[in-house]
């Protein structure tokens, strides 16, 4: 089989470790991320709360997630990605 015929993989799910200020709130941030191109579902859970910041786990699900777009959406809200903890990739069909 010719390698060039294999469709490029797409990211279906990603779990991010994000540091955010208290404002905007988690629902506001989640709503912003889900409106990003490629994201269909967002799940956010609070991991740690500090004086000025909150550490959250953001799980993004979608048909074709673009990590750079998600990063831009998150940074636009004043939050920052610490690490990419999990990624689920599937071959395009």
């Amino acid at each position, binding site marked *: 089989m010719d390698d060039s015929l294999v469709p490029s993989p797409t990211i279906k799910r990603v779990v991010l470790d994000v*540091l955010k*200020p208290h404002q905007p709130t988690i629902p506001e941030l989640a709503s912003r991320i889900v409106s990003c191109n490629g994201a269909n579902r967002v799940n956010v859970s609070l991991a740690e709360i*500090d004086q*000025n910041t909150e550490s959250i786990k953001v799980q993004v699900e979608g048909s074709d997630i673009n990590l750079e777009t998600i990063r831009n959406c998150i*940074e636009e*809200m*004043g*939050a920052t990605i610490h690490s990419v903890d999990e990624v689920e990739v599937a071959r395009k069909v």
Partner: protein
Amino acid sequence: MEKYLEKFRFYLRLTGVSAISRRYFVMNAFDGALTALGVIIGAWTSGPVQPRTLIGAGLGVSLAMGISGFSGTYFVERAERLRKLEELEHSLLMDLHHSVHVKAQRTAMIWAALVNALSPSLAAVTAIVPFVFAHYGLISKNEAVIISLMLIFSLLFMIGVYLGKISRERVIISGIRIMVVGIITAALIMLLGNM
């Protein structure tokens, strides 16, 4: 339009400026109303009231309070908010320059400054409106003074009602409480004016 309004509300929520501007609004509307009260009763007790003089003095006071309110608040809020932004950048270890925070803080500075500028000015302008009618001979000078005082006391009462709503106290009591401050001020000015 709806989109801009939603964004504006989001910025106000993000910066927490709503509570501060509420305080500014009450404090400065109170300031404006009492200043106008001082100008009107001071002029009234000093001799015959000339509507034109009172309109000029009132507008001057209103403009000065507006400019002072805007510039003072803008610079104070700017300093506070830039510091807050820097602290946040330090905590997040990132540059927030391209985030909503910078736009939101800028909006908050201008909003707080506008509230601070407009509330005393509007209160003072409201108080001199009857003198415009007196100037054109629609009402007498004494009537203008009485209507103006009634407007000021009503304004003070409304400020009290608003405060009562915020503190969830009895609004009538709260309104009367603020109005009494105006009455005491008026009495003191009259006493000094007649000395």
